[in-house]
């Protein structure tokens, strides 16, 4: 087994364990901290996929903004964080069965797929993915319109969030 494979197995085991803690732990603040660990693990996988920009963006956007926002929301709804009642539905076995069936189906189809064992081709000399991405996002004949629509969506969502959370008293 190559060192990369060992790193992959270690990182993915830690990430999946942390993700399980996110969905099962009782204390919401702890769940948010386990979420931070999960997001770090995914960032390491982005590095393994040679998408360094996304690893950095993952740390800045997901951990720096989204996870912190969640911790703020947990603190603002403080009484719930120490809710003594059950943190999980009465119907959780059905949810577990649905999740396991979906997982089994995906694994079944991945195993039967011809390209599942393919290996990455090395980048040709002079190929810079980050530069290509930057050009693709601002070229009118590539992805300029989706990029602008995404930014308008973000603006509209942030204005909407302010309006919804506004205290009118």
């Amino acid at each position, binding site marked *: 087994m190559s060192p990369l494979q060992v790193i992959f197995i270690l990182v993915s085991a830690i990430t999946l364990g942390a993700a399980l803690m996110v969905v099962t732990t009782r204390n919401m603040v702890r769940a948010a901290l386990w979420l931070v660990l999960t997001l770090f693990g995914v960032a390491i996988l982005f590095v*393994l996929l040679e998408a360094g920009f996304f690893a950095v963006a993952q740390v800045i956007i997901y951990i720096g903004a989204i996870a912190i926002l969640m911790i703020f929301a947990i603190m603002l709804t403080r009484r719930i964080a120490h809710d003594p009642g059950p943190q999980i539905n009465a119907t959780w076995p059905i949810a577990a069965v649905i999740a396991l069936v979906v997982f089994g189906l995906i694994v079944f189809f991945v195993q039967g797929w011809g390209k599942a064992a393919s290996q990455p081709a090395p980048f040709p000399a002079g190929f810079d993915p980050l530069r290509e991405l930057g050009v693709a996002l601002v070229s009118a004949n590539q992805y300029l319109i989706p990029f602008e629509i995404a930014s308008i969506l973000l603006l509209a*969502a942030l204005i909407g969030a302010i309006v919804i959370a506004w205290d009118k008293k």
Partner: protein
Amino acid sequence: MIPLSWYLIFAAALFCIGLFGVLSRRNAVAILMGVELMLNAVNVNLLAFWRYLTFEKMAGQVFAVIVFAVAASEVAVGLALVISVYRRRQSIVADDINLLKY
């Protein structure tokens, strides 16, 4: 090297853990955390397909950028809703928020 299927199975496991969280948690913030896990699994898949199958086209990376933007807007609106509901009903348990049910 790592075969593509490892990434796909990892992403499937992460997605299903997030799905379980969304379906089973009572706290609305925890449900949002489950959605974040599912979006992360999608991003792993997108970048794995980009790297292994079509790295000369940037479609996979561009789609991952858009997933990032959608995740940020989703969590902003979702947490604003949670805080607004908490202010009115003193609860963010999803079972208690049933005004639209009848």
